[in-house]
């Protein structure tokens, strides 16, 4: 199963619809990346951990329909706070919408959750960390943020922001650096 969080499809189109001219090419980038990752892992199932669509229905939905039709994997959506598109639209595409999913001791959700006996995979936060080094250097990078029984995934989508978290001693952080993931 492939877990993807916070793609925020439709955000660019939504902005454009309201008169903010975000470059159209950014729309395609999301789908290109989705194709790449599905092609690479060839998962049996793709599970979106919420905020798949940023807004109400717009024409990016058609692009999403195309993508679904050519993607062989089964698709599940754990609903997020942004997912306001009618469930029927997803049903037509054979996409199951669920509030959360418990499997083999794992709990998949959009918002971070704690449940005894489960390790939680979630999104929502768009986590990032700030790094600093000698010479007053600072960086803020998106990351996978791992707590003892939780992993918060970074936002997958282009044109989504980040929120800086402060790790405690128990936490582990894996930052995204260009095309690799580096453990801090």
């Amino acid at each position, binding site marked *: 199963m492939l877990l993807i969080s916070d793609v925020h499809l439709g955000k660019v189109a939504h902005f454009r619809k*309201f*008169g903010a001219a975000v*470059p159209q090419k950014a729309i395609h980038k999301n789908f290109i990346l989705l194709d790449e990752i599905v092609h690479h892992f060839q998962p049996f199932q793709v599970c979106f951990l919420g905020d798949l669509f940023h807004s109400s229905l717009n*024409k990016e939905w058609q692009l999403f329909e195309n993508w679904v039709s050519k993607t062989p994997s089964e698709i599940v959506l754990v609903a997020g706070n942004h997912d306001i598109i009618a469930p029927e639209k997803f049903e037509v595409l054979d996409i199951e919408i669920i509030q959360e999913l418990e499997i083999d001791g794992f709990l998949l959700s959009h918002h971070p959750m704690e449940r005894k006996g489960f390790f939680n995979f979630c999104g929502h936060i768009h986590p990032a960390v700030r*790094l600093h*080094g000698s010479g007053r*250097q600072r960086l803020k990078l998106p990351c996978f943020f791992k707590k003892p029984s939780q992993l918060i995934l970074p936002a997958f989508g282009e044109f989504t922001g980040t929120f800086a978290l402060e790790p405690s001693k128990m936490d582990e952080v894996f930052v995204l650096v*260009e095309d690799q993931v*580096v453990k*801090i």
Partner: protein
Amino acid sequence: MSSRKKTIPSPLGKDREGLFQIAQDWFQQQSWKPFAFQKESWTAFLQGKHGLLNAPTGSGKTYALWFPIVLNYIKNNPDYKTKHKKGLKAIWITPLRALSQEIKQSAERITEDLGTQMTVGVRTGDTSTKERARQKNKMPDLLITTPESLQLLLSSKGYDKVFKDCSAIVIDEWHELLGTKRGVQMELALSRLKTVSKDLRIWGISATIGNLEQARQVLLGPETKAYDNSVLIRAKLNKKITVKSIIPKEMETFPWRGHLGLRLLEDVVPIINNSKTTLLFTNTRSQCEIWFQKILEQHPEYAGEFAMHHGSVNKETRLWVEQAIRNESLKAVVCTSSLDLGVDFAPVETVVQIGGPKGVARFLQRAGRSGHQPGKESVIHFLPTHAMELIEASAMQKAVQNAAVEDRIPYLNSFDVLLQYLTTLAVSDGFYPNEIFREVKQTFCYQAITEDHWQWLLNFLVMGSQSLKTYDEYQKVEVEEDGKFKVNNRGIAMRHRFQIGTIVGDASIQVRYQKGGYIGSIEEFFISKLAPGDVFTFAGRNLEFIRIKGMQAHVRNSNKRTNKVPSWMGGRLSFSAQMSELLRQELYTAASPNPSKGGEQSEEIRALKPMFDKQREESKVPKPDEFLIETFKTRDGYHHLFYPFEGRGVHEAMSSLLAYRISLLTPITCSLAYNDYGFELLSDKPIDIQEVLDNNLFTVDYMRSDLQKSLNSNEMARRKFRDIAVISGMVFTGYPDKGIKMKHLQSSSQLLFDVFKDFEADNLLYQQAFTETFEHQLEEGRLRMALERIAKQEIVWKQCTKPTPFSFPIITDRLREKLSSEKLADRIKRMTKVLMK
């Protein structure tokens, strides 16, 4: 002054004398005598000329222009005493809405005393919706408004009828607008009014700046009929200004850095006591708050006679303070630039400037706040906040003598403002591109705009891109059948109107008591750092933060002490070339006290001896033919300091240029800091200065292209983009009171910048961020001259063991620029653990 005046015969003849008599009589009734510049302005105005009046605040400039406006009405309406011709006759633009009441009063004095039935009205962001609607139906004869509110008028239907019979527009404090995007907004509005108002005179009023002639050109448009038919009038009010430095008694312990200046607080007390009313000017609102608190803490006897005035304090309090100054019921007021403009305060006897005023023009203006009666001298005390500022104090005295005033550099090709303006026109009555292009091209800002640019902008407005895609839902401006560009979507029109006012600044949050009662406004980023229960100082009170609600912060009074003071990003002005030169000369007297060469040491430089001694211990005080470089290591990393003494702007550019060139030699990450004396490259690795010198990295060759490339690897352009994104309407800042609800349309300009970088790097607005940085912020011409000067100097490289007095104010500056040529992964490997607030 114009020489053209004599060649054009007066079209008025006797008529004008009659009109003048009315004005003269009025002055006589007040037992005043009109100044020469006032009469000159009346004449030129009544001859139908446009012009720029160079007159300081409080010199009677309002009478120089309100009078001819009213006289002109009298001329055209001989039965003015009995009959009233309705409709807008003149607009007075003020950059600060706080000044509008004052201007209204002086206008009303004339209209009433002369027995006209003219009405005077104010329209600003403070004007109620009801009042605005009333004005819409029935405009006052004379309207006082702000550049933003004028744009809003242009965004309402049928605006052309409103302005049809407008005979004059006066732009007050033009120097404050020039060199800002509000100035560009004004240029565009004027370009439209020139067409819409058939008999319009355009007048600007400006304090003294370096480029007055250019200021007139920007106001009227270069090579326009209006410019040809215009005059520049200077009010030559020779006023004696005396600058006195407050010299610390114990120089040995006077700090090398800092910006508050509280150490000299007790030295201010005798100054306050010896004068009727004293204004204490601070550079930031937080500094203002702190001084107010501290003075009252240590001198409770001032309670009741001591007040504070800055832009975030609520309007009622500000008006009360201004009135109290006039009544002479206050001993002293701590203020910021909020009291720079407008309002004539006769009782002010003394002015104290705390910290470097960052500009001769501003310093002169503040000095002019005191001793307002004709013939009286203005006294200004300069209070240094750290040792190096004493050099500035000394140079400032010479600058005042030479009137070495800065230029205000006007913007060129601000496509963001143009897009906003075009949307404004599309929102109201729609526009035809050909007609508007002709008008726009006549402005100073867009004199070089090409047809290609224009087409790009039109495409952007209509399609949100340069080519039409089938699935795209972009919506903004539509092209109607007859070729008219028009916004028909009400939501877009509404959002645009809200956006017009937000041409500058961060989102501001109103601070209110829970039970109501407005205290003032604070920038959002300060509030966002507070947790409920936190106590902060604001408007002279200790307040406990309760919660954020909409765009309001609720607070209650608190007895707890706190050191949290909101900070505001103040504009940091750079010194003019002339002032930098004076500063250098001043400093060089410290190295070679040679009275025969005119290098006599001033009192300030002599007082600084302990600091210069310390500097010599570790490093050197450079002579005129020496260029000092210092390197040392601290806990923060490896410091590399360079001292060209060229002013902040040049140092900003030079540090970026040098860091870029070094990064070509070896991959490196630097953080850059600069002040008016020099700049620093701070890195986690040492830079080989010998290599820098051997490779001749200070060369003028390829300067332009290197500088341009350096912008790609640092953040300056990214920051410029923030305003551009808001002004052009790509980032929506939210409705004033429903901020939260519009969240799905808010995005950060940073995010947008990245998307443009990756997907649409040829976008004109993205490009503008770079050209603006390059042309506006980094003064290319001066950088070139500075590099040429350095080429002739001997380079003195001191490897120090610890920070020197010269370096201290720079290395402790936390507002820094970054530049990196390293791979991200490599940097991260070296970076330590996370944890940063």
